[in-house]
């Protein structure tokens, strides 16, 4: 392992360029999460849930700040754009459910779907970067995992209340949100700019820092599938949903 990592010069100009985009995506994602929880806080009536949403928003804010500070230390000029092609669509879907005060939908989108991608991709980045930045990605991934686990219990209870209704609803959310994330993580370079990367699409340049988009996408879908298993969604359902995602 160590041998392999030595072959990446993380301080080269190309590597720093890829890292800039990696940080930009992570920061944008955290700010999307922060905004989503903030919107949820506004939408929810239950005072305890309201307070919890604010607390969550704050934790995502801290993640964003952590990434920002680290990027600055490395001299990376990150770009934040909550309205880019993919992040903007995800945000709009989320807002449409928040407007309906649909707490379950908000949790499923933010803490299962977005968080599965965040945990998986942060873990991959963290393992690839054998440095302080890598450690930071890994420790934030750990915290995001807790967010996922917290929502799992809640969603499991919901499923037990009325399984058919829950599955129907989750399928709709999956179609709404995972379709976007699956497009976002397609292995081909984005044809239109995602609005976050600073130059051309970074996907094909990921190998410069020891990453590759194919395994990152695979790992993210794997973690998503496991998250659905933990909620108690039957395998024959989840495999059908995943098999229908854009490739």
């Amino acid at each position, binding site marked *: 392992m160590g041998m392999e990592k030595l072959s990446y010069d993380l301080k080269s100009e190309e590597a720093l360029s890829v890292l800039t985009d990696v940080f930009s995506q992570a920061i944008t994602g955290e700010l999307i999460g922060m905004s989503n929880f903030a919107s949820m806080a506004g939408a929810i009536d239950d005072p305890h849930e309201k307070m919890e949403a604010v607390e969550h928003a704050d934790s995502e804010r801290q993640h964003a700040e952590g990434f920002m500070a680290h990027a600055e230390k490395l001299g990376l000029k990150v770009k934040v754009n909550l309205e880019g092609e993919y992040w903007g669509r995800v945000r709009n879907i989320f807002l449409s459910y928040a407007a309906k005060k649909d707490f379950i939908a908000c949790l499923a989108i933010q803490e299962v779907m977005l968080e599965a991608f965040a945990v998986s991709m942060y873990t991959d980045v963290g393992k690839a970067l054998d440095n302080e930045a890598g450690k930071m990605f890994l420790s934030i991934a750990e915290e995001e995992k807790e967010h996922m686990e917290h929502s799992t219990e809640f969603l499991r209870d919901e499923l037990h209340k009325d399984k058919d209704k829950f599955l129907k609803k989750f399928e709709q959310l999956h179609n709404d949100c995972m379709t976007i994330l699956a497009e976002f993580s397609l292995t081909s370079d984005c044809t239109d700019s995602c609005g976050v990367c600073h130059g051309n699409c970074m996907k094909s340049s990921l190998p410069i820092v020891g990453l590759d988009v*194919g395994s990152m996408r695979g790992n993210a879908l794997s973690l998503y599938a496991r998250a659905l298993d933990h909620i108690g969604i039957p395998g*024959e359902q989840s495999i059908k949903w995943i098999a*229908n995602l854009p490739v």
Partner: protein
Amino acid sequence: MENEAHIDFAVIGHQDNWPSVQSIINGMRSGENEPLTVAQIKGTFSYIPPRSIFKMTAKSKTGKTVNGVYIETFIDPDELTPHFLRKNINKVNEAISVALKHKSKIIALGGFTSIVLEGNLSQFDTSSSKITTGNTLTSAYILKGVTDAILKLNKRLQDCNVLIIGATGDIGSACTHYLSSKVKGLLLNARNGRKLEAFAQQFTDTSAEIKWNTRLEELIPMADIIICVASSASIEIKDYKKQVVICDAGYPKNLDTKIEEGNGTFVFHGGMGTVNYGYDFKPDYREHFYNYPRPHIAHGCILEAVVLAFEGKYENFSSGKGNIKTESIDKIHELSVKHGVELAPFYNSKGLCEISLPKSSKG
């Protein structure tokens, strides 16, 4: 809300080629989504954690119904080699946990999944859920198949030389033991010569004349029956007797594509059974991946779990390597027939096949 049926048995399996993976995945895609190419599927398939992909219901002749679940391991068909053993064992282990979550009382390890485990169950807790390789009923169907074929040819087993390719394996050794008192000669083949010789030495006192050789071409010309239970795509059958009966039971089943038929040579896919009183899947993807010429056909290894579930006989029926006893083969076959689970009709990759008497011996 739909009432969830309890699960009696679980089948753990894998696909051994990309076209069948492709048919299954495309079978799951809804009409408005384009079918995917193999290249598109390859990128993600093996990342998916093992999961239940459909449920099954089997009906016994006795009227009893049992419910099962098929758990796909999502092992990459290109990675079915020793090099990926660790990774594959992890997948099988995960699949077993899925089966345990379903509270299935018996688990069949289909195809290569039993091979990756070498039948070693010690690492699993089998107190609530039993595990079987299913190799005993597979052996029974192989043996029943060749016996039936020989009878139809008006020949007697005791006049035949039987070649077993993969003789030192679990199924191969079961067949060797079984036939050792019933045939004229046994011709044993495997690649590892030392193991083969040590194995063959056990049979020097039996009534059958015994020969062994790692060189398959030395044995083929003498064989009246060939049972192939090796996992290899590259087995070559040349210089065979004109009226040889070939039971292709290993993976991949490709011998019939390499042999000229029609000169009295008979090749069928062995180790297969059929559930005569009904075997249904939900969701039913069979139109996308079911490659058998009749409904309700399945591998003997899967049907062993079905039969044990019908019987309520929850035990690690086939486990380890080289432990299959002749009595167990007869026992499981008897139970199988009792429940209307029987040898599949003869077929090969071209479809159902009839065994016909050579012209000279007719009338």
